[in-house]
């Protein structure tokens, strides 16, 4: 074929493709980002904030000139706290709206519901919430805390600084508290805590009558050993729980409660004066004092036009995830899924607690762990933090069937559940 013919062929192909994809042409001016958070139903209480945070981040990035010379465009859908609807909406985002990446989900069950969709359509999900671990998927980046980045340091803090010897593990009855408590129980027993010094208690979603449980906690705490409550109680049930604690006079100096699901947002609906001193473990608090966080809070308050709006840990996780994605896309020079997946590993961006977070090969990130005490103004004051960053451990070392598993998505391993004992890819969760 002559050069001329080849050129004509190329030209013809170009014309053909232009006509064929004319419909999609307008969309090529922008890069689309999907936001998959419930705006109605029970989870709207937590997830709406994350939708707003994402819109703010995208807005800010566009002010800075967008990405790869194109503007970013947010596509917001409402899965309405309905788990199967999450999968449908995810499919709509990826195949109809052609988004380059999706930021979304809160509950573990919603994440599990969208996993097959992202795998099948080969797209990317950023998941911003602390979760129970025991998972690593090729198409998902976990920017929230794994149990070793939240639960275990919190328990260590209580044991070392408060001298706690008796433990109440209280949680809402679903997968995150149950798995976290299983890990914690195994961890505590490995540390020499006797099984009779551990009390485990589950309550239904939205439980509002805490009288019996709080008095049980008081009873359990009167055995002459320092007692603490480790709470994995889900958002909504926390307000009546803390109100009952306050009314029954359970003081943080006597029986401290450390919570993994209570942040600034949950405390906003509550008078915190009787709760001063109760604890929470997160990777970020609004009260963290550094310039980038001050800037973030200022932008957030301006964006929501509300001086009282607070920031919280999952928002920071989206901040980290979004910036990592920007950096990876720039590195890859394209929004193509496979290229971005490769470029993501090793990307480092500043977090808001004053450090650099890095995406590890197991698709989890490095974070500092902060322990904060509740203050009378509804904020937390950091009383302890890990000296360095902690790497998210996806497969817990304290559960017998996952301690041999590791995840590494770099070639040549490219496996989310590699069993180091058998040397084969594929174990639990495959």
């Amino acid at each position: 074929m002559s050069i001329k013919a080849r050129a004509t062929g190329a030209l013809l192909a170009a014309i053909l493709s232009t006509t064929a994809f004319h419909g999609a042409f307008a969309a090529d001016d922008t890069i689309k980002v999907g936001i998959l958070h419930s705006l109605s139903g029970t989870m709207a209480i937590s997830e709406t904030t994350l939708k707003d945070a994402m819109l703010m981040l995208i807005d800010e990035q566009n002010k800075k000139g967008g990405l790869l010379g194109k503007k970013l465009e947010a596509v917001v859908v409402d899965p309405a706290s309905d788990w199967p609807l999450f999968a449908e909406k995810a499919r709509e985002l990826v195949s109809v709206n052609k988004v380059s990446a999706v930021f979304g989900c809160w509950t573990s069950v919603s994440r599990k519901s969208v996993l097959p969709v992202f795998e099948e359509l080969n797209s990317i999900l950023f998941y911003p919430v602390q979760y129970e671990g025991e998972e690593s998927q090729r198409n998902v980046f976990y920017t929230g805390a794994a149990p070793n980045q939240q639960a275990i340091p919190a328990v260590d803090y209580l044991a070392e600084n408060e001298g706690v010897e008796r433990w109440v593990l209280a949680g809402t009855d679903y997968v995150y508290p149950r798995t976290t408590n299983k890990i914690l129980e195994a961890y505590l027993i490995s540390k020499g805590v006797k099984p009779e010094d551990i009390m485990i208690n589950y309550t239904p979603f939205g439980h509002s009558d805490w009288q019996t449980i709080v008095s049980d906690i008081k009873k359990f705490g009167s055995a002459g050993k320092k007692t603490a409550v480790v709470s994995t109680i889900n958002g909504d049930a926390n307000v009546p729980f803390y109100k009952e604690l306050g009314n029954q006079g359970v003081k943080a100096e006597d029986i401290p409660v450390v919570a993994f699901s209570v942040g600034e947002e949950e405390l906003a609906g509550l008078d915190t004066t009787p709760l001063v001193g109760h604890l929470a473990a997160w990777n970020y608090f609004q009260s963290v004092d550094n310039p980038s966080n001050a800037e973030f809070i200022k932008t957030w308050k301006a964006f929501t036009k509300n001086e009282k709006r607070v920031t919280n840990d999952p928002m920071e996780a989206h901040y980290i995830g979004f910036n990592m994605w920007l950096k990876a896309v720039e590195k890859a020079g394209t929004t193509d899924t496979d290229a971005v997946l490769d470029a993501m590993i090793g990307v480092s961006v500043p977090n808001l607690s004053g450090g650099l977070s890095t995406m590890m090969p197991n698709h989890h990130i490095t974070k500092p762990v902060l322990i904060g005490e509740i203050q009378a103004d509804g904020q937390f004051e950091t009383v302890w933090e890990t000296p360095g960053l902690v790497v998210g451990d996806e497969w817990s070392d304290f559960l017998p069937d996952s301690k041999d598993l590791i995840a590494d998505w770099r070639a040549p391993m490219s496996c989310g559940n590699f069993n180091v004992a058998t040397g084969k890819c594929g174990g639990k969760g495959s």
Partner: protein
Amino acid sequence: MPTRLIHRFLQCLLIAFCVVVTVLATDLRAADDLRTMVNALGGGSFQENQKQVEALAKTGDPKIVPALEALSEGDLYQRKSDGMVFIVKPAGSNFKLVDALTGDAAGEEAKAALEKVKVNNGLRRVIRAALGGLTLMSPDAGVRLQAAQTILRTPSADSLEGLDAALAGETDSAVKAVLEKARAASVLVSDRPVEEKKAAIATVVQTGGRDSLSLLSGALSSADESLRPDIETGIQQIEDQLALWAAGQNIWYGLSLGSVLLLAAIGLAITFGVMGIINMAHGEMVMLGAYTTFVVQEIIRNSYPDAFAWSLAIALPLAFLVTGAVGLVMERGIIRFLYGRPLETLLATWGVSLILQQAVRSIFGPTNQEVGNPSWMSGAFELGGLTVTWNRLWIIVFSLAVFAFLLFLLKKTPMGLQMRAVTQNRRMASSMGIRTPWVDALTFALGSGIAGIAGVALSQIDNVSPNLGQGYIIDSFMVVVFGGVGNLWGTLVGAFTLGILNKFLEPYAGAVLGKILVLVLIILFIQKRPRGLFALKGRAVEA
């Protein structure tokens, strides 16, 4: 000679001056020591500050009490420029400084120029113990009682001396009782002779209660062999007592849960029970009542902060009016077209409930709103071995009052008579000249208004969020169906029965299984008695 005289005089003056200075200096040095010690709190780590507070407590000087109290409240700040530590009060964007030892005003300072002296639980505990020792001799009996209770919670051999001194001078019998117990507790952890410890154990056992159990179990692990049998029988004795109280406590919790169920269900007892409308939007009426409370409190907070204690009293009639009006509109606009078609009513009211939820979410936002408890609804008191929280007590009283009001309205007023007439035999009532459509509308508005009042009460114990109503709708229907449709007394008995049953199952089965068991029991019960506890009898039932 005058010069000599003057010389002598000057000499005397000098000596006198020297004496005064030395006396002053020792005093000043003590104050100086305290000040350096207080200033050292700034910038210290938690562990260092714990030691510092203990050292301050050892001086026994009551002057440090305000500084320690401020530290425990998080009001102690260090000035960055000179390292001085002050107690601060917020004044606009600045802080007003107060001298930590003398309590004198010390000017104002920008927030950025000060650094907070951080406090954590461990430090607060040490401060509490220190304050307990320092305030044991206070002239105020209330402060002494608190001090004695503090020592009781953190007994140590060091406080024995202070306790003995305090006991000798104590006249108030309540304080004396706590002091004696605190002394016994401190003896248990000291290295006093066995005889004295035995007496202490007897004192602790005699007073009973959960804290005694805690003291004894704590002592058991480190006790001398000869003391063990004493402690063990003591523990047994207290546990037997507590088991009895535990049953009482369960009944109280059950009554309290029952009163919440009664409040949630009582409006439904009218709309569903009396009128027969399957009203799925009932929970949202409760939610609207709670939001009315929130709005009222918000206005009071911003404009009339002194009236906060009255916020609930103001919110009650408003909530009734707001939800009553919504109910009226709902009946006139939707439900009246659907009488006699239960399935359509169910779907329509469910749709209304979704609309109301999303409307509230759009207006107020999806997050929880803060509804404060007035001071008379916070805290708890001890009644023998029972812990009774004020908010629960008031809710029981309130639910019974609402019930009495409703019963009076239905049985003793012309409006109630018309309502009952219309629901029992519509055509006959209509022929007697009763305007049945309006009676329907008003009855539905009444039921909705009562739900709104319930919302005011429930805002005190639960989240105020758009989802508030969903948590109560199932329970409400359960209570009304269980109690017997169309009978208010049935709702009362049903609510308290379910409450108590739930609370007796919960300690054995856990909250999740307890709830399931209650549901299973209700299903079995309905199989046996389809019309609930108190079934309406007679011809009216079939009409």
